């Protein structure tokens, strides 16, 4: 039991760590690679949960994570980047140092919020949940601080990963939710893709700032 707890803890921690790496990364290709790592970490965590809780359907979730998030999405993102000739480095609002500090603050916050909240839940869930929350917050932070569509999408994905971690941690949560997560990720990806292409037709770059300039004096 103790060991399982430690290992689950370790995987979740790894996920948080990779989130920080995402925050740190300022090259698009690098970003995509780190995200692959993130997805793998997620699948490991979920897999471990599946083994520990002995709930086979979690294996499915882990598989989905590996397949979609670690293979399909990074691949297609790379192709988008190539196709649209997005300049390769990512402009970060406020610089890396500050974002890292804010990120640490967020992790602290999620621990403060979650640990007392989950005294009732079994220890395996506790840490997981706290880490999941911090992954979610870090993903949101990334979406806020990146001024480039692809990196925003990645931020959003990492946020979803946090959700899956939480869902996996939730004992006996029916399959409905995982499917829906995957489902939403899928939709998200498709729609974003559609939009990127649409936008490509009209803009030279997918920098969201350009999108905002589409606004003339329309109010």
């Amino acid at each position: 039991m103790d060991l399982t707890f430690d290992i689950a803890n370790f995987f979740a921690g790894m996920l948080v760590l990779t989130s920080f790496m995402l925050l740190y990364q300022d090259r698009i290709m690098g970003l995509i690679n780190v995200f692959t790592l993130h997805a793998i970490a997620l699948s490991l965590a979920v897999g471990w949960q599946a083994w520990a809780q002995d709930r086979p359907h979690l294996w499915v979730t882990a598989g989905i994570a590996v397949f979609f998030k670690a293979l399909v999405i990074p691949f297609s993102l790379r192709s988008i980047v190539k196709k649209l000739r997005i300049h390769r480095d990512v402009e970060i609002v406020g610089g890396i140092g500050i974002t890292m500090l804010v990120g640490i603050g967020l992790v602290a916050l999620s621990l403060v919020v979650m640990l007392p909240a989950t005294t009732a839940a079994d220890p395996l869930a506790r840490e997981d949940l706290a880490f999941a929350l911090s992954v979610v917050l870090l993903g949101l932070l990334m979406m806020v601080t990146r001024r480039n569509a692809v990196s925003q999408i990645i931020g959003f994905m990492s946020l979803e990963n946090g959700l899956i971690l939480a869902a996996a941690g939730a004992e006996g949560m029916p399959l409905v939710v995982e499917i829906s997560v995957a489902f939403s990720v899928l939709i998200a990806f498709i729609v974003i893709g559609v939009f990127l292409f649409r936008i490509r037709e009209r803009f030279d770059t997918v920098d969201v700032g350009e999108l905002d300039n589409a606004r003339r004096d329309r109010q």
Partner: protein
Amino acid sequence: MPLTMALIGVAMLLAVAVRAALRSSSETIVRETYGASAAICAFLFLCAVAPRGADVVTTALPLGLPWMGAHFKLDVLSAFFLAVVDLGGAAAGFYAIGYGAHEKDPGRILPFFPAFLAGMNLVVLADDAYVFLVSWEFMSLTSWAMVMSHHHEAENRRAAFIYLVMASFGTLALLMCFGLLAGSEGGYQFSQMRSAAHAAWVPGLALALALLGAGSKAGLAPLHIWLPLAHPAAPSHVSGLMSGVMTKVAIYGFVRIVFDLLGPPAYWWSLPLLTLGATTAVLGILFANIETDLKKLLAYSTIENIGIIFVALGLALAFKSQNDGVAAALAFTAALYHVFNHSLFKTLLFFGAGAVLGATGERDIEKLGGLVHTMPRTAVLFLGGAMALSALPPLNGFVSEWMMFQAVLLSPSLAPWSLKLLIPAVGVALALAAALCAGCFVRAYGVAFLGRARSPAALAAKETDAYSLGAMWWLLGLCVLAGVFPGFFIDTISPAARAFVGGQMATQGSVPWLSIAPIAESRSSYNGLVVLIFMAASTWAAIWIAHRFGSAGVRRGPAWDCGFPDSSPASQYGGSSFAQPVRRVFSDTVFVAREHLDMPLTGETRPARFGVEIEDRVVTRIYDPIEKSVVWLAATLDKFHLLSIQGYLSLVFGALVALLLGVAIWH
């Protein structure tokens, strides 16, 4: 039974409104609508004066809030105001049969006119907060539509805008007031509010809110600014109703809340009423004195009279708080009597102004003059109204002011020192307002109707139609009656006084020779009839003597021109020149009047120029800052409309972190 009849009458008014909206194309619709409105109002007036079996009649309809229903009530107070409303309504409808022909686009007036009347009637009949406020705001909405009827002039649009914003401000204040009285359980019926036990601070706050709410509708300073804008913008029969009647409905609301629902008063309640009332009276009449737009002038004088009424109500409150029933009854009766009188002559005057507007197309008195020759009947009627308004005996305006002075004379008996010091000053304000009012109407009448025509339009004016004249004659006749037989009217009002201030004046019917003596004959008495006869007799005597013993010959000759032959009409004393002394004496106190005189040196050929600009301190010091701050805030927040997506996301992010922190701290 009368209540049921009244409600049926209101329903009929609404039906007329709907019909007018549906058949706006037909030619006869104008006459039909106004005629029907007038008839129904007359019917409602009968319902008001009809003897009620019980003193108070109530009924409830399954409308409004479902668990409560709509409650209606006809007691002495609502009966009195119902009579006032429908007297004015009938006159306005009758007047409009003729005047309505001037309307270019009657479809924008017709449906709203009966609806407006219905709204005012319902306010007076309402017996729960919901019905009251619905009809109150409905009244504002319909009148707004009619103010908007001449929507091509930008100033009318602005006037309508300001009007409705102020109106809904008042409604919100009343909403809070009633919410306070109803309590968290929502006892919205007036009966529940009366019986409810309130915390000590509740009545004071409710009084303040009632002052804001009813005051903004009645035109109490500094909430009066919409009135001189909106009243002139509407067609004249509507202006007459708004100024003469709607403001009275506001007074009704105030009386209903403060004298009825709030329970026994504390003496200090009267302080804000007295101060605000006196300020309003003087402020209003001063602006009327420098105004050159005839209808605006009338609107300002309405503000003055509202102030006077509030002063009387304040006195009544003060006396009531000291349990001096008779004095309170005197003040209260004076207030209601002035309400009645003002509704008569202010409507009459607006009708007169409307007749002038219809005949000349001018509202600016500087472009009028000599109308006494071209519109003789209107001139007589307007003069009558002006005399009544200037409180000249033996007309009705004087009687109510006389009663107010009597009430002031009783006030030394009041114990609180603040009142002892305040009331004399208020008395001065009343007298000042009365005197300025006379000056104001000498100016208005003298410039608009006397002298020589200042514009071709005024020269070519034709007498107005028979319906309008009929309505005005009817109103003037009532003014004379109310002035000559005041005792009768006072006796009809005094039950209301008994019911609401717990005292009653001596029955005036029993005083010999139709005279009135509020307290005792040895103390003060007035007899309009004798004064009238006295004046008529001596006038006749003077005429007779002069013609009998002196020469009766009359020769026409040119006026003394001081050596400048055939001077142009422009050389007459105009409105602004007449106002010059008032401007000089009172400027820099309430308004700032800047006069620029550009006098050419000798030998220069350019003409001399003179201009006056008036700054209304109330507007520049109170309303402009508010407007500016709202605009500034809106402009500042507009940045949030154009953020980048990151911006928006960071807002969400911030909100999330903040709430999580909140929860963390709450743990």
